[in-house]
């Protein structure tokens, strides 16, 4: 048995040339077979790869899809993000516990089923949702859970369940991403130009990154092209992990060709021959389709050597699957993960365009950015910059979830007001909108006349609506818990600060806070924002800070007009000591003020 085990692992390692930078794929394959990593497995991997076990453990412990404890043959990951909670994840969780017979975090004694919670799995529009091994199921109702569990027990094909039919949920197509397309048109248009001209065209279009930071794409490509190097790389960031975002899911399922087109054009522009798509582990179910599309493109001469007979223009694309870590969406963490390591962000500078994947110049772009770049080749920069506003050219995909009657993906022109958008999605009664997901801001109705654009409310795409009666403070707490969980732990302000912030915030929610706690949180939030290395820490205080800014009345209502409220409980603190010594403590009363 153990020999089999070792042999299998050796074969997997050899398949990837025992290349430590491909450790992620090796772990994924081993995980697919065993479901978890025993010390024995880790030992075999270490031997096969000739790397210390501790490095393997280091990697495994970082990603949620990897476990060092045995898990069931079927793992049910119920998403527990804020929107999912709003839509009844707790009731569905209870139904699963009843049907399976174990609690969340546990495995059935026969090793058949493990129940566990997951962060947002990119299905907020169809919440409550879960991943059953790699198959997503959505719109779960407590009463359906029995049948689902029955199907698992009978080893039926889960992807045939009615709940596994994922709605595309594309509610509004715009002229850029979701307009009709033909494979090859954009690449063909780009190849009529020189690489420099392609970059100039992208610069002229005013295209800015859609992944959140909004960096001008043309400038990024130019910087990447201008660094002297033997190799360059294009990376497509399809890790979307911001809770409430699922627009990249829809792009990858409906417009993968446009994404690959964009990557190929980026490769031509910056002088890269190799592109990698980093696809979040939660979207593994799309992998086969994506590989098929890549194969078709190869056959059509749109990938490979001398693309479309352009001499010396070679470009290949591979897809790297992630293993569940929000921070891997941060570009330098993503690159670390691509190199087979844990996904901890790097110090910047140097930026990826200087030293990225394999220390070579690398242009990392969001899925949506690459689509827009391809479309600009097709239709021209002038056309593109007429869409949207002057400072925000083009369209933006918004993933809409929460309290609205039409959740889904909308391709809107930049510059739309929140108020108009509310009507479009059926959220007229919203009391608040979280624009930009957890890391964005909580917007109050008096700001609904403002616009979604880089110059006003900038967003990577997540828009969550809260309807009347929602307890906003509790939801802000849940967003903050997300950051506590997902912090990679490198920076003390982010690792410790977010937890401290949560502790102070608990006092507020529980009505045990004074103005001091409010001031403490503001100061702490500022420290976390300014002292953290990457965007996660720099935005983690936003749910609480922006709710303080825009909903001060919620805080006024719960804080106490006294000078100080202690958290210390004398009777509880002294009881163990009193019991051990059999003595009566100094009474707290005597000392009381």
């Amino acid at each position, binding site marked *: 048995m153990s020999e089999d085990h070792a042999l299998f692992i050796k074969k997997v390692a050899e398949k990837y040339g025992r290349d430590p930078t491909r450790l992620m794929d090796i772990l994924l394959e081993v995980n697919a077979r065993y479901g978890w990593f025993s010390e024995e497995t880790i030992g075999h991997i270490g031997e096969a790869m000739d790397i210390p076990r501790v490095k393997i453990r280091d990697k495994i412990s970082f990603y949620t899809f990897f476990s060092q404890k045995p898990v069931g043959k079927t793992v049910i990951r119920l998403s527990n993000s804020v929107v999912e909670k709003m839509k009844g994840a707790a009731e569905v969780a209870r139904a699963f516990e009843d049907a399976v017979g174990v609690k969340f975090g546990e495995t059935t004694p026969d090793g058949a089923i493990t129940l566990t919670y997951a962060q947002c799995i990119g299905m907020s529009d169809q919440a409550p949702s879960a991943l059953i091994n790699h198959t997503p199921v959505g719109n779960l109702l407590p009463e359906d859970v029995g049948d689902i569990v029955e199907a698992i027990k009978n080893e039926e094909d889960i992807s045939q369940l009615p709940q596994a039919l994922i709605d595309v949920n594309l509610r509004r197509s715009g002229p850029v991403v979701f307009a009709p397309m033909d494979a090859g048109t954009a690449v063909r248009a780009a190849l009529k130009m020189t690489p420099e001209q392609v970059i100039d065209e992208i610069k002229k279009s005013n295209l800015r990154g859609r992944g959140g930071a909004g960096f001008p794409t043309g400038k990024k490509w130019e910087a990447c092209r201008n660094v002297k190097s033997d190799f360059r790389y294009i990376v497509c960031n399809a890790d979307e992990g911001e809770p409430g975002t699922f627009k990249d899911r829809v792009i990858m399922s409906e417009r993968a060709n446009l994404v690959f087109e964009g990557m190929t054009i980026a490769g031509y522009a910056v002088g890269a021959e190799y592109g990698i798509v980093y696809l979040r582990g939660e979207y593994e179910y799309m992998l086969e389709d994506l590989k098929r599309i890549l194969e078709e493109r190869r056959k059509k001469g749109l990938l490979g050597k001398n693309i479309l007979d352009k001499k010396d223009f070679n470009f290949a694309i591979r897809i790297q699957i992630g293993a569940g870590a929000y921070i891997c969406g941060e570009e330098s963490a993503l690159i670390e993960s691509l190199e087979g390591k844990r996904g901890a962000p790097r110090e910047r500078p140097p930026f990826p365009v200087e030293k990225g994947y394999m220390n070579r110049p690398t242009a990392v772009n969001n899925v949506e950015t690459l689509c827009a770049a391809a479309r600009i080749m097709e239709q021209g920069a002038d056309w593109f910059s007429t869409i949207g506003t002057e400072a925000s050219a083009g369209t933006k995909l918004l993933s809409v979830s929460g309290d609205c009657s039409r959740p889904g993906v909308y391709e809107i022109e930049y510059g739309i007001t929140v108020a108009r958008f509310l009507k479009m999605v059926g959220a007229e009664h919203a009391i608040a909108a979280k624009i930009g997901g957890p890391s964005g801001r909580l917007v109050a109705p008096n700001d609904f006349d403002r616009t979604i654009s880089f110059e006003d409310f900038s967003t990577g795409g997540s828009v969550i609506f809260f309807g009347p009666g929602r307890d906003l403070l509790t939801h802000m707490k849940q967003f903050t818990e997300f950051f506590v969980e997902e912090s990679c732990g490198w920076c003390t302000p982010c690792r410790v600060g977010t937890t401290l912030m949560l502790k102070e915030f608990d006092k507020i929610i529980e009505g045990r806070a004074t103005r001091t706690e409010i001031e403490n949180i503001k100061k702490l939030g500022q420290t976390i924002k300014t002292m953290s290395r990457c965007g996660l820490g720099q935005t983690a205080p936003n749910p609480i800070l922006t709710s303080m800014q825009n909903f001060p009345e919620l805080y006024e209502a719960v804080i106490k007009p006294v000078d*100080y409220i202690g958290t210390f409980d004398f009777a509880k603190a002294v009881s*163990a000591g009193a019991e*051990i010594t059999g003595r009566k403590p*100094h009474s707290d009363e005597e*000392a009381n003020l």
Partner: protein
Amino acid sequence: MAKPLIATQHLTSCFGCHMSILDIDDRILKLAKMVDFDRSPINDIKEFTWPVDIGIIEGGVSNDEHVEILKDFRKNCKVLIGIGSCAVANSVPSMRNTVPLKECLEEAYLNGPTIVDGGIIPNDEDIPILLDKVYPLHEVVKIDYFLPGCPPSADTIWNALVALLTGKELEFPYELIKYD
């Protein structure tokens, strides 16, 4: 006008913060001109003679007596300052916080490798009763100012006291509040 009064106290700590107070060297003469000391281990006055203006506490709260002392300080001090890591964030004393009290005592007095012939857990009327954990000051009473550091340097303490006594803006050069 009478000089402002200061009181100081140590709880669970190494006394290093008090050493750091003394480390202001000859400035202690200036301090003596500016203030009078009431209750303090430095002069061995064990009870408040009167309410004072400034109270300085080093160390964390780890037994019933500490709670009483701390509350007494809060009652008798207009301004209360926590100095040093133990007072502010518990630091070394709180290493026991992750272990239940009973296990801690048993390991120290009954089962530890240096115990010969059984051993007993000390228990006497004069020994205060330990709390389940060590607590930072601000969880028990309101603390007006914190001076972190292990210990805060003499200059930090001096700058803070002078600012407080003279009402001048507090200035900490970067080196004084950089801890790594």
